[in-house]
């Protein structure tokens, strides 16, 4: 039966070429766009999780309220105690301390006079003062452009764009000017041990990475930290688990009136990421729905045209005694085969494009020169197992649905008028 239908499809190309092309194009578009959107969203989430949000983040309530201003005067005190409590309560999570702060970097010339100044955002993590896995998490080794990761007190990494702008060399001294946790003015000289490029314009412009012990001394933050970031040991972000953790932790402080009581936020609640995630989910679903709808209409139309073209053939088959239901079923089997061929071709081509976009990507760095959002400069697609069916099933469904609609005409044929029609 299948062999018979296949022969029909292959021999009568008018029956198959157009639907196959339409399905292939639709499936290619669905897979490519879905893979691309997921890739970009995944990268944005990953980048934010690694650098800013963690999978969950603990701050004081007052800090969380103004977290964009990096208010270290509202930081968590007695960090060690809180970290031990978190480690006990959530053993499946790795907790790391981070201090983010802003200030001014001044670069002296050989006589000690300023040869350049620029605003800087600094990130303090455990680089060498204690083991933390931060070097791997932040991908610092691969992001190094020159020099090496700080191994001693007083060494820092600076963003490559900043270093290029002021012609900074490894080993040169720079002065950080800012305010301590208590608001005092603080000045400190640091030695540049290396330069980094994360591929995010917002970070590469004026970015400084130092060990958290140095930052604590600089900002008078002994046993204090701005943020405590939690990363699920299983690796990937799991929103369900993050929600459970936040509920469990925050309920402890629900009745507390202390504005410095800790609060846990999950990744989705920070940096407007919930909006992005929901937007991409809705857009992807909408795209698939529009695809199925539009394809169904096109294929219904194609089926109707095919039905008209095969009007005589169906008439003869009915006249020879073939049941209407049988003709309808063979039409659907045929549609199923055409759908499979088109969807397979579309999936194959679509996955190829996704693979290309995953490997090479689209460089948008020129559009992000003034961007302040944490975004990758190369947008890449990502292959996920659902791409194997996300285009295939709608492709198949659209073809079958189109033919189901157009095939209804078979049931409207009257046996009594068949021979009269066939004389024409």
């Amino acid at each position, binding site marked *: 039966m299948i062999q018979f239908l296949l022969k029909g499809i292959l021999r009568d190309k008018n029956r198959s070429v157009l639907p196959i092309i339409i399905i292939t194009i639709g499936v290619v578009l669905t897979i490519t766009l879905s893979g691309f959107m997921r890739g970009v969203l995944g990268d944005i989430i990953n980048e934010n999780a690694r650098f800013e949000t963690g999978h969950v983040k603990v701050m004081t309530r007052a800090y969380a309220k103004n977290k964009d201003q990096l208010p270290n005067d509202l930081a968590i005190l007695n960090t060690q105690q809180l970290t031990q409590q978190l480690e006990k309560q959530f053993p499946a999570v790795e907790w790391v301390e981070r201090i983010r702060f802003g200030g001014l970097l001044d670069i002296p010339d050989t006589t000690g006079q300023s040869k350049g100044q620029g605003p800087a955002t600094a990130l303090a993590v455990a680089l060498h003062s204690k083991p933390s896995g931060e070097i791997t998490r932040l991908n610092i080794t691969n992001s190094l452009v020159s020099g090496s990761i700080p191994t001693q007190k007083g060494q820092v990494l600076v963003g490559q764009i900043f270093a290029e702008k002021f012609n900074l060399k490894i080993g040169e001294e720079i002065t950080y*000017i800012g305010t301590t946790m*208590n*608001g*005092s*003015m*603080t000045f*400190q000289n640091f030695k540049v041990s290396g330069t980094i490029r994360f591929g995010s314009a917002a970070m590469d412009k004026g970015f400084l990475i130092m060990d958290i012990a140095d930052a604590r001394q600089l900002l008078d933050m002994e046993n204090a930290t701005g943020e405590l970031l939690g990363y699920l040991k299983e690796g990937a972000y799991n929103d369900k688990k993050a929600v459970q953790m936040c509920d469990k932790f925050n309920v402890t402080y629900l009745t507390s009136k202390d504005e410095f009581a800790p609060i846990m936020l999950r990744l989705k609640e920070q940096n407007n990421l919930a909006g992005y995630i929901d937007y991409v989910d809705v857009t992807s679903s909408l795209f698939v729905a529009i695809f199925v709808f539009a394809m169904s209409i096109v294929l219904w139309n194609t089926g109707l045209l095919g039905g008209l073209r095969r009007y005589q053939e169906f008439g003869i088959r009915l006249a020879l005694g073939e049941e209407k239901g049988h003709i309808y079923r063979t039409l659907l089997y045929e549609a199923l085969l055409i759908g499979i061929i088109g969807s397979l071709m579309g999936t194959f081509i679509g996955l190829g494009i996704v693979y290309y976009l995953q490997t090479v990507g689209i460089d948008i760095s020129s559009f992000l020169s003034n961007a302040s959002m944490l975004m990758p400069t190369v947008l890449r697609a990502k292959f996920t197992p659902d791409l194997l069916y996300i285009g295939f099933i709608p492709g198949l469904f659209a073809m079958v649905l189109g033919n189901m609609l157009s095939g209804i005409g078979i049931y409207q044929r009257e046996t009594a008028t068949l021979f009269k029609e066939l004389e024409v």
Partner: protein
Amino acid sequence: MKKLLYLILFPFVLLAQNYPNANIILQKVDDNMNSKNRILESSMVIHGRRSDRTVSSKGYTEDSEKSFTEYLSPERDKGTKMLKLDDRLWIYSPTTDRTIQLSGHMLRQSVMGSDLSYEDMMENRKLKDLYNAKVVAEETLDGRKTWLLELTAKVEDVAYEKRKIWIDQERFVPLKEELYAKSGKMLKKTVMSDVVRMGNRWYPKKINYKDVLKDGEGTDFIVSTIQFDVPIPDYIFSKASLKK
């Protein structure tokens, strides 16, 4: 019709005539608050959300162009010095032994975590030279009768485009001030108190600065000692004195 108009406008004309000339008031305020030079010892009590902090300093000012400040305490800030010459500001830090010039938007940053910006600290010019003024009302503040003046900038390089100042009618000292951006948004409020007689002038010994964009109770600037029109050696206002 003309007569009716006169009748309606007459009370307003009378009222307007009751207000003294705003420029004369400003001149008297400038005479009280400014001097050819001065040496000031002060402490800043910065009311934080967790705790209060006191920073004490000694400052020398000459005309409106030169000023030099040395921070005396707490230990962390001790030895930090600032020099202002015209519109340039240098800061010396003893921990790094470096003198750094601040410019641009950095001048709008807070000084020592207080509610004062470097721009606020640097501004020594007379109000009369910077603003056009008009008296808009008469109000009573803490039992003192005041003129309410509205000031609009007449020069480009001012930190606040508009100000509202309540001036003591008898002593010609500001008792309250509201500072506005060009957009009309209020940026800071100040309240002056402990007004004392010093020679032939009145001077407020305590000023509370409140950055309305920040939480907290603001910063109290308290004058410990102040000497007007005393000779200050020239070397004080040189970059060399920062490292001394």
